[in-house]
Structures are given as structure tokens and as C-alpha cells.
């Protein structure tokens, strides 16, 4: 099964990378960019066909490793 875990910075946490990209896009003249925040995605292959089991495993993965709860939120989607 294929899944995606998306990890984003919590609101209020400063994102210097996002800021830099925002600045760069503005100076490249990209139209209308107001703000940018950067996050990560993990595309994960999970063995087996049991969706709820896969979801549990992904939650486990996110909480044990993929996201740092001090600064980050995560979201899980099993895509097929």
C-alpha cells in the first residue's frame, strides 16, 4: 500500500527557510506570493492490504520519528 505522511511546522514556529524562499520568489518576480512555509513529505510503501493497520503503522512512524512534536504537526493519507 502507498501512503504519504506530510509534516509541517506548527503555526508560530519561525521558518527561516520558508522566509528565504518567499524572499527569493518575490525577487524573481513571481506574481502575488504572500507567504511561504516549508514542510516535508514522506512517501511510504507499506506491506499488506489492511488499511487500518497501515494507518496505525504510519501513526506510529510519525510519532516515533517523522515529526518532532515540539515544532511539527503531521498528517497521514493512505493513497492506495
Amino acid at each position: 500500500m502507498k501512503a504519504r505522511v506530510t509534516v509541517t511546522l506548527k503555526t508560530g514556529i519561525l521558518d527561516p527557510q520558508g522566509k528565504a524562499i518567499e524572499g527569493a520568489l518575490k525577487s524573481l518576480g513571481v506574481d502575488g506570493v504572500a507567504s511561504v512555509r516549508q514542510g516535508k513529505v514522506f512517501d511510504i510503501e507499506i506491506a499488506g492490504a489492511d488499511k487500518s493497520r497501515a494507518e496505525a503503522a504510519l501513526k506510529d512512524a510519525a510519532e516515533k520519528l517523522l515529526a518532532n512534536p515540539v515544532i511539527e504537526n503531521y498528517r497521514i493519507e493512505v493513497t492506495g
Partner: protein
Amino acid sequence: MTSNEPKITPELVAEHGLRPEEYQRILDLIGREPSFTELGIFSAMWNEHCSYKSSKIHLRGLPTKAPWVIQGPGENAGVIDIGDGLAVVFKMESHNHPSYIEPYQGAATGVGGILRDVFTMGARPIACLNALSFGDPNHPKTRHLVSGVVAGVGGYGNSFGVPTVGGQVRFHTRYDGNNLVNAMAVGLAETDKIFYAAASGVGMPIVYLGSKTGRDGIHGASMASAEFGEGAEEKRPTVQVGDPFSEKLLLEACLEIMAKDCVIAIQDMGAAGLTCSAVEMGAKGDLGVELELDKVPCRETGMSAYEMMLSESQERMLMVLKPEKEAEAEAIFRKWGLDFAIVGYTTPSKRFVVKHGGVVMVDLPIKELGDEAPVYNRPFSDPPKRPVLKAESVRPPMALADALERLIGSPDLCSKRWVWEQYDHVILGNTVQRPGGDSAVVRVNDGPKALALTVDVTPRYCEADPFEGGKQAVAEAWRNLTAVGAKPLAITDNLNFGNPEKPEIMGQFVGCIRGIAAACKALDFPVVSGNVSLYNETQGRGILPTPSIGGVGVLDDFTGSASLAFKAEGEAILLVGETVGWLGQSMYLREICKREDGAPPPVDLTEERENGDFVRALIAGKTATAVHDLSDGGLLVALAEMAMASGIGAKLDAGPVDTPAHAFWFGEDQARYLLTVKASDAEKVMAQGRAAGLQVHQIGMTGGQALALPGERAILIKALAERFEQWLPMYMAAGAA
């Protein structure tokens, strides 16, 4: 040799970069049509990069021997003896084109490749250097390239854990579409524990080590591989991604199995990966090699023999193992989490045989693959001699003080701190002299011995007069090593040029090599390793000829190394060497007068040697308190650098009446050094110089907070330092990230 490989057509041959006559040579050699995989192998072995077909006959003219040379060109890296049972292993290599396509990964994998060359020989890397050439700062791509390349060089070296201690950065419009990334690595080994690529013994297991093989960097047959089916576009990445983490593990694992005496021969997989490494190991050992591709650890499914043989996936090695050590060696690799697979054996047949899925895909004569590669003596023409520019004919457009401030803030002469602060230059705890001086000084083990390391070349000189430019590059490296008090031992060279099929480019190449050879001979400074990068051209315009020279020297005691900062007020400043005021091809001419013309300064190698030996002796005798060699920008720029490094100024005497002031202060005459001595020592040192027939003159005294030139406004050191530090960060900050 069947399978569903594409049929060989003239188009396919051409796409593999093989000329019709080269293909004919293949047919004559093997007496039949090659398979597709075989064609790929020939194309990899016979391309310019691996075969040195345009450069080989000229490289033979380089001096490569000295009593301290253990291994000259021909192995993964050169090896020299530094005494006490220790050897230094070093080489420089380019990663120019990949760094243009993907600056971060291109530069990173360049560093990774050269580190592998060094630790393959059993040496632990102790330092890296890098020489970078970029296009005009105003070219729209330049900033992006600088930012990516520097981050990539740093990203790899920092993570791998080797200090990057020196290098060069220059800008010139002739590098607009062809930036250069030359990376040098230096390692330390014991003289009796050097590992080589030549296999020995029949039936010895050949082991694949490191990361898995993917479809990285497979060149050549772009259309051909598209025939393999859907998604061909996706399957054909030509850019490798570096994994410094895996390389660090590979280093530790390799050094561990070497220490356990498991290794007969070892070779890293660099350009043309498995092909080149396997052929080299066999050919050098007069043995055949048989590979079983089904055993090769792959990262992707369905890889063909062609793809596996040509993949340039990084962080891989090939090793001939002592059979009785198999279990021990495997356990070490497993511990480090790396792949370990026996993928073949040495054979008595002198043939290179590759099997895949039970089918023999390749069966070629192994020695001929390398030895019979075409060799070209390409036509070359000497560039026209440029006239010597008379100093009197160059009108100074501004006051000396203004010119100095402008020069010190120019892209090529300004501080490169922005670059080297992105490199960890203190890791391993042995960096005695950090970037910013004439040479880096790196302590060996816990000392007192140390190495001095530098990279040098002045491309504008090479373009104006390849022979003098080649000499100058070597002489400058030698001078930089001398300036810290080291005894220069040997060099590695990285020859970056345009299209060798053009006689005028070939003329630059040949001229530079002759110059390099002359200087190496005169200075006892042999070439022990190197690399050639040709075809650096965009839209028919070549780069400036850029033969980067990496120099290595040794100091018996690192605490006696000299540095360029003035040490105290009231010391005498001495100039060693003759100053005629040579403005042709100078930075003054280019940056201040906006002209790039004239003949470059000639290099008198006898004078070079005598002056250098004199200076080195003064350092050894602890008479010289600060030392700096003179190069780009001439005397006043060198003085400014000594002053800025210390915060101490200088009161300078007027130059000779018969030399125009701007030529005296900014001319780029060679073989010169500046040094300071205690005021009470000045007379004695000058007398020594005179006795030895050298030119040694006092030109002023240290002190104050400015450079004070007679008849000029005082140039404040603080203001100068601000300009010096400002240009690069400002330039980089001005653009998009």
C-alpha cells in the same frame, strides 16, 4: 550474446561518442560486432575522460619522479613519503559539468569522488581543498552556481568529517556557461600499508562494497535506452546524488578491513563505475575478470547489464579479497550497514567476461580495452606572442590609495571568508593555519610534523602565454608552500581546457603542460597525480585555460610555520626578489584600467628557487616574523593583506625613481616575497641576501593603523578590511537565495 539489446547502428555508435574509425578499431580488435553492452563499455573506456586520448602523449612529458615519490600517476592517487614511516596520498579531480547542471549535487559528488580515490589507497583523508571558477558576477546564473557549489562542497566534506582548508575562487565571463569545480583530497597512510588497484592471483573473489547500484549518471545512449520502454525519461537521471553519510561508513569499513589484512587489491568506482574499476583491476594485474551481474546489489528493479556496467552510482568500491578472509570482511561491512557481495572472480584468461541472467553479455580482451584505446596527437598551434606592455604606456587612472581600495574589494581579490566559513575547517583538531593564508597548515597525527597545502593557477596568464602560465601556476604553488616555511614536495594537477579538437585550444594545453613540466623539473616538484577535463566550451567559446595545481609540502615542526600577519609594530619590512613593475596581464590592468592585455610576467625558475630557499631558511632560523608571497595585485595588495590580518599598519618608503609608482606597487613580477624581521636584524638579512646574489630591500616599517605611502592619503586598515570582507557577502545577499 543475445537478449533484447538494441541493434548496433551507426547512429547508436555515434551516440556513444565513438567515431567511425574508432568503431572500426573495435571491430578489428574483437573480430566481430560488439553487443550493446560491449559498445557501452568501449564508449566508457575510450571516452576522453577515461582514456586520456587527446592528452596522454603530452602528459608523458611531466616529471613524476623524486626520491620521495612512492607512487606517481597511474593509480587512484599519488603517494609521497614524508618520513617517519608516513605517506601522504593526494589527488585533485574536476566535476565541472555536473556542477553546472545541479550545483549542489555536482559539487558534493565531486568531493565524494576524490575522497574515495584517496581512501581507496588505504589513507585516512585529513584535508580537502577546492578550486572554483565561476562566470561573470553579473551573469544571471552565477550567484545560483556559487551558492549551490559552495553548499555542496561544504555539505559533503562537513558531513564526511574532513576539514576543507584551502582553495581558490575566481570570476570571469569566460566561465559563464562552464563553471569549474576542482576538488583535492589529501590523506595520510603508513608507507608500508598502501593499497593498489592491481589484482593478483587467479580465482580470487571480487567483492562489491558500499551503496547499491541505481541508474545514476548513465550517459551515452540516451535514445537507445529510450527504446527500453515507457517512462524512459524517468529512468535516465544523469545527475548523481551524493550520500556523505554512506561514504563516511565506507571509509571506516575500508580502513578496518585494510587493517585486518583482508585486501589484495581495491579500486573505487568512479567514472564508468563497475566497468572501469573491474577492467583496471584485471588489466593491471595481467588477469581476466569474470563478473556475475545477478549478484550486484541494485537499488532499482529490472536493471540491464548495460545499465549496471555504466552506472555511476556513488559510494561504491570493488575489491579483490583474500579468500580466507571472506567472513571477517563481510562482518565488518555488515557492522557498518553496507552492502557486501561477491560479484565475480579473477581468471587466468585475460578476458573481461560479464554474465547476466545466465547469458554472457560481454566477452572482451581485458588489456586491450585500456591499452588499445585510441591515442591522438591532435594538431596544435602556438598562440601568438603578446607584446610586452611598457609600464610607461599605462596611464594610472586614479591615485594609488583609491586603486588599492578598489582592488581589495574586487571579486577576485576580496576575502573568500563567505565561502570557507561554510566549510568545517577545524574538524580533526589539526588545522594549524586556517584558510586565508598562503597555504593551509595541517598537523600530522599529533605533530610535530605538518603538511602545507595549496591550490594555484592564474588563468589569465595561461591564456596570454600558456608556457609561462603553466610555469607560473607551479611556481606560485611552490612559493605558497615556501611562504609558510614548508619544503615543497609534489603536486597534483587538474587540467581544465576547452575543445582539444581546435588547434588553438590544443596549443594552450600543450603549452601549459610544457610550462608545468619545466617548473616541476627546475623546482624538484614532481607531478604524482592529476586529472584532465576537456571540452569546457559553450557556444564555441572555451574557458580560460585553467591548469589548477595542488601543491603539498612538509614542515618538520608545525610550531615553526610562518604566517602572513604582521606580528609587531616597528619591524622592518623586506621585499625579496626583483621588481621591474610588470603590468601586462596584471589585476591592476584588468580591474583599474579595464584592459586585459600584454604578455604575462615571465617566471625565472632559478630566481624562484633561490629566493624561495632564502626565505625558507629565514623562517627555519626564526628570523622572519611574518611572510607572504606576492601574486595577484602585486606588492601593495600583499602588504594590505599582511596589515589586515594583523590590524597593524605600515609606513612605506618611496619606490625607485625609475619605476612608475603604479607599476612598482601593483606590478606582478614573479619570484617575490614580503617578510618582516626585527628592525635590528634588517641589515644583517639584507647583507645575507646580497652575498647570495639576491635582491633584498627594505621597503618600510610596520606600525600605525594605516598604510602610509609617501605623497598619498593614509589608507586606514580598518576601512580596507571592511572593503575586503564586504564584496562577496553583499553580492550573494543581493540575489535570490
